[in-house]
Every structure is written in structure tokens, then in C-alpha cells.
């Protein structure tokens, strides 16, 4: 059977079998829930979304104040919805019953049940100031357009010395990419490993290898699970970014959203590297019980890289972060964070990608040889060098 056909059959089986397993569906749902929570939490907690207040207005002057307050309230995240009230008695009743948050009355009075929220208070004060200033200026004979200019001067432009405008948002995205890549690399790497051992411990591998080559089997398994991982990531990123934009947790700004898409570049790079090593390590053992000791070194490298990626968030320009973002084993977890923070020079990114691709090509070859040399050896765990020698 040709390599391509058998490779495709193996990859298809990996995907169709995995998506039917309850463990896959549950873990996928949990990941998605976490992402949904992370995406909408800032909006829920944050006061990032505007609050709408119902404010009673007793007459045209108060209605004008409310409108001006609403316009001014945009910066304060306070929207104001005016409601007509007949007189003070009705206004008091509605405010007390909670139907209104506040009411503007004749004689420059605002009533509320308890103390006014700060943002509403500020908005109403600004509105009041604008309306009365506007009235005064008009009485002095200033034209309508000049009056508006005076009332609404261009705001101050803010500039930071480091050139960064929204460090918090970048840091949040950098952290989220790191966590997502870490979970995904670890999960799918282990799935490759348990899949290899499942074939070995159930001995089905002997039938498989009578019609296809060890390399087709290994490649099909890695690529099949990788496509599944990529699909899951696409879904997670689409849902996460979509929700974050919809709820206002993220600003719809290419500079800020772009880094969230970095996971889609770095997952395949990191996965190809780690999955080939996980497959080779798993081929050395015959039982699920022995799998953990065979894969622990790899897992340690991933976990350590994850911790380095944390410290890189604090000091993205530091030596540790710079080195770790170039070393192929830690680059998939450290480089996306530095890129998201805007700290990685394009040449650094290019070098990191080149290094990881070159290392992966080498490791895929070595891994395939180990795999081919060990896959049919059952019983005691096979030594790495022995497996390499067998397949020569």
C-alpha cells in the first residue's frame, strides 16, 4: 500500500475515532467553557461595559441637561436614558420604587434614593455645566457653532514614553496564548503517546505493519491528531476573540487582536516537534504503566518552558526571555508571548522559526527510526540506542 494512501487512512481513523470518544468531547467542552469565561469576564466584572441609568426629567431644561450628560457620559461608561416626570411628587415615588435611578428637578436639584453613583454624578454635573454655560454664552450673543466649540473642546491626547498604549490588554493576550499553547501541546502530545502505546499493548500494530510502513503509521497518527488539535484551536480562538470583541473585553483593533492569532502559527510548530518525540518515546514501551516514565522528560521540558514564558511576560526583553524564545524546545511557549507584547524583533522571530523547523526535521527522522526500531518489540522497555540500532 502506498505511503500516501495508508498515511491518509491512518490520519482519518485518528480523527474520526477521537471525536467519538467521550473524553475528547468533555475536555474540548471544558476548554471552550474556560475560554468563554475568560473572554467575557472582564466585561462582567469590569465596568468595561457602559452602565445605563434611568433619569427622570421634569422639563425641557432638565431634558437638555440629561442629553448633555449622556454625551459626556461616554467617557465615563455611563449612559443616561431620560424619562419624563410630571412633578416632584411623582419623581420621588418613582425614585423610591426603584423605577428611576435619579431625577432632575426644577431649581438645579437631583434626587436619588441613596447616594448617586460617582459616574452618574459626574456625568450629570458636566451636563448641567454645559447647558448653563451654553445658555450664558448664547445670551452674550455667541453663535451656535462657536458655542458648541467652546463647550466641546478637543480632549487631551495621551502619550506614554514607552509607546505602549494598552499594556494590560497585550499582557492579557500574551498570557492567554501561553496558557492555550501549553494546554494544547501537552494534551495532544500525550494523546499521540497513548495512541502509540495502545497499538503496541493491544498488539494490533503487528497487523497494521503487515500492510503499511512504520513511518506511515507514525506520520498518520501525528498529522491526524495535529489537524484535530488545530481545528479545536481555531474554534477556541474564534469563539474567544469573537466573544471578547462582542462584549467589549477586547478593543476591535488589528494591533491588539492580531497577537491572539499567534497560537495558530505556533501550535503546529511546537506540536510537530513534541509529537514526534512523544511518538518515539511511547514506542519504546509496551504498557500504559510504563508510558509515564518514558514521557516524563518531555513533559518536564514543556512545563518548564511554560514557567519561563511567565517570567518572560514580566521581563520580555530580558536575557532569559530572549534565549528561551529562540531555543526550539521553549520557543513555542515563550516567543508568542514576546510577540504579543511587541517585544520580539522580526529577525528574532525568523530565527526562532528557522531553528524550530530545522530541529523538527531532524527529530522527525530520529523519532521515526526509534519508532520503527522499537514498535514491534514487546515486553521490557526498549533502550533508546538499541531501538536506533535495530532500525538501521
Amino acid at each position, binding site marked *: *500500500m*502506498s505511503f500516501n494512501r*495508508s498515511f491518509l*487512512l491512518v490520519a482519518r*481513523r485518528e480523527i*474520526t*475515532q477521537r471525536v467519538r*470518544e467521550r473524553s475528547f468531547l468533555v475536555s474540548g467542552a471544558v476548554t471552550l467553557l474556560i475560554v468563554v469565561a475568560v473572554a467575557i469576564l472582564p466585561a462582567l466584572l469590569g465596568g468595561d461595559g457602559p452602565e445605563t441609568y434611568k433619569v427622570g426629567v421634569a422639563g425641557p431644561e432638565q431634558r437638555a441637561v440629561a442629553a448633555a450628560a449622556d454625551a459626556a457620559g461616554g467617557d465615563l461608561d455611563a449612559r443616561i436614558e431620560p424619562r419624563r416626570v410630571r412633578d416632584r411628587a411623582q419623581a420621588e415615588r418613582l425614585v423610591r420604587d426603584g423605577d428611576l435611578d435619579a431625577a432632575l428637578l426644577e431649581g438645579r436639584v437631583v434626587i436619588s434614593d441613596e447616594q448617586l453613583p460617582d459616574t452618574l454624578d459626574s456625568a450629570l454635573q458636566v451636563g448641567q455645566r454645559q447647558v448653563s454655560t451654553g445658555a450664558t454664552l448664547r445670551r452674550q450673543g455667541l453663535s451656535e457653532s462657536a458655542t458648541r466649540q467652546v463647550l466641546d473642546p478637543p480632549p487631551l491626547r495621551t502619550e506614554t514614553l514607552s509607546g505602549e498604549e494598552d499594556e494590560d490588554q497585550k499582557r492579557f493576550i500574551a498570557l492567554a496564548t501561553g496558557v492555550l499553547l501549553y494546554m494544547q501541546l501537552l494534551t495532544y502530545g500525550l494523546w499521540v503517546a497513548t495512541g502509540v502505546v*495502545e*497499538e503496541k499493548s*493491544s*498488539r*494490533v*500494530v*503487528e*497487523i*497494521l*505493519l*503487515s*500492510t*503499511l*510502513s512504520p513511518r506511515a503509521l507514525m506520520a498518520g497518527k501525528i498529522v491526524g491528531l495535529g489537524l484535530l488539535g488545530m481545528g479545536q484551536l481555531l474554534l477556541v480562538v474564534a469563539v474567544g476573540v469573537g466573544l471578547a470583541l462582542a462584549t467589549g473585553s477586547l478593543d476591535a483593533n488589528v494591533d491588539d487582536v492580531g497577537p491572539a492569532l499567534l497560537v495558530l502559527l505556533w501550535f503546529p510548530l511546537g506540536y510537530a516537534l513534541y509529537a514526534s518525540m512523544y511518538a518515539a518515546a511511547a514506542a519504546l514501551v509496551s504498557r500504559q504503566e510504563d508510558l509515564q516514565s518514558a514521557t516524563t522528560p518531555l513533559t518536564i521540558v514543556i512545563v518548564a518552558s511554560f514557567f519561563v514564558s511567565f517570567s518572560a511576560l514580566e521581563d520580555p526583553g530580558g536575557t532569559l526571555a530572549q534565549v528561551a524564545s529562540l531555543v526550539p524546545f521553549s520557543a513555542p511557549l515563550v516567543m508568542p508571548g514576546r510577540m504579543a507584547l511587541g517585544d520580539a524583533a522580526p529577525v528574532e522571530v525568523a530565527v526562532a522559526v528557522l531553528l524550530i523547523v530545522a530541529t523538527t526535521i531532524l527529530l522527525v527522522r530520529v523519532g521515526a527510526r526509534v519508532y520503527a526500531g522499537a514498535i*514491534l518489540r*514487546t515486553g521490557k522497555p526498549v533502550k533508546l540506542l538499541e531501538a536506533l540500532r535495530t532500525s538501521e
Partner: protein
Amino acid sequence: MLAIEGLTRRFGDVVALDDLGFEVPRGQLHGFVGPNGAGKTTTMRIVLGVLGPDSGSVTWDGRPVTPGSRTGFGYMPEERGLYPKMRVGDQLAYMAELHGLERGPAREAAYDWIERLGLSDRADTRVEELSLGNQQRVQLGAALVHGPDLLVLDEPFSGLDPGGVDVLAEVLAERARDGAAVVFSSHQLELVERLCDAVSIINDGRLVASGEVAQLRARRGGTRLEVEVEGAPDSWWEAVPGVGDWTTDGDTVVLTLEPGADDQQVLAAAAAAGRVRRFGYTRPALAEIFREAVAA
């Protein structure tokens, strides 16, 4: 025809196969017997390409076996193996596809075999949830689902109940009738004798006998005489020239004749000793041929 020639394979210092060769024509049911560790499984693994030989060749219909021709082979390894979490139908369809069938025909073939093996109500069950007997049936299905021209089965009868043995024997005979070459190993020599057209016996990696069971028998069958003489002394044969070992059971004695011995002299001696009730050559069982071949 499957032709194995000069197969040699070492594992470290151990010689597992030493210049082994035999042939299995299409339409033949071929028994492959030998003591544990004789090299049966190694031979089968080499035929299926799971293992490489150090030297020697395997050809199918006169051409060296390639991964392409192997898709037409069916294999049941000694260590049974299926995906434990895969459903029976999916599993067999996947095996059929791995052996070159397209997706649609693969599913059809899978469900045909599921029905033939009496597993229709188990098609959507995961293999790990089946009884051992049913798992064995699925295993057989995995070897047969793509309609192979060559079947190589390592101990297919072990672990089967008598009903299962009959089903399997019938399926194998049918495949051979349809023109497939079928070779299987077994320790159940009566079964091999009953089913097989030919056998190969190996010991310590070397072929010690191969051919049709009748030929093997004829090759050494003439050397044993079974004689029953009523009321004769236990030693009437001792003076006859050319008589070697003997065993007695009541009035019956089985004599081993050395080459060149004259059976008519034995008959005369027997008649002189008493009433001859029975006189004839024994038909040695395969088990006996096997024992001698392996001991030689």
C-alpha cells in the same frame, strides 16, 4: 503460489531460522508445525514483512513480495490484536481499507463478514466489550475481510471452543477451494492431519519434513508391522533377521523393521508360533511422524 527459499534469520547469537524453505500452492491448506521456539512465528512475520530476513527470499506467484502484493494477504498474528475501543464494524472496515479496498466496498465486506461470523447484533459494540470468543471471531474477520489470496494464520485454533473450531475449519477449507493459499500453524496435530493437504515440519529453525501427509507417511510408513498372534510366546520375532525395536500390547506386537528386512520371513515366523489374527503395516499418525522427525 507462496515460495519460501533459504530463509535465515538471527537474533543476536540465536539462529532462529536456518536456510528454511517450503512452498504453498494456491488451493492448498498447508499445516505448519514444530515445537515451541522452532521458528514458526518468525517465518510468518517475515512472509508478512513485519520482520526482515538476514538472507533468503519470499515470492508470491513467482514475484518477490512487496508492500503492494501484501495488501492481498490476510494475517492473524499469534498475539491477537485489535483496537480495543473501536467498534466491530468500523474496525473491520478499516482493516479492509488498509488492504486496498475503497471505502464503500470496505464497509460492505465488513458487514458481510460480521453476518457470516454471527456478530450481526454486535456490529456497533466496542471490541473490548466482547467476550473472548467473539473477539477471536472479529480477529478472524480482520484477516479475511478483504478476500485475501494468501492467508497466514498463527495458531488460529488456539482458544476456540469446538463449535468455533468447526466454523474456522470450514472457512479455511472454503478459501482454499476458492483458490487461496492457506498456511496455518498449530500444535493440534490431529486437527492438522484432518484438515491439511500438506504439512511442513520445522525444528530449530530448519525444515525437517515437508509434503503431502500421504507422502510423508509413505516415506516411512512401510517400516512398522503390527502383528497379532494368538497363544504365542512373547519372543517369537527375536530370531527373525532385520527386526529392530518392538512394543507389545497383549497378543499384539508392533515391530520396527530395519531396511532390507523381509516381511515374509516375519509372517512365516508368526505362523509357526501360533494363530495369526492380524498382520499388516501401521498407518502412522502425523503425531508420530512429527515426533520422529523432530527427534532425528
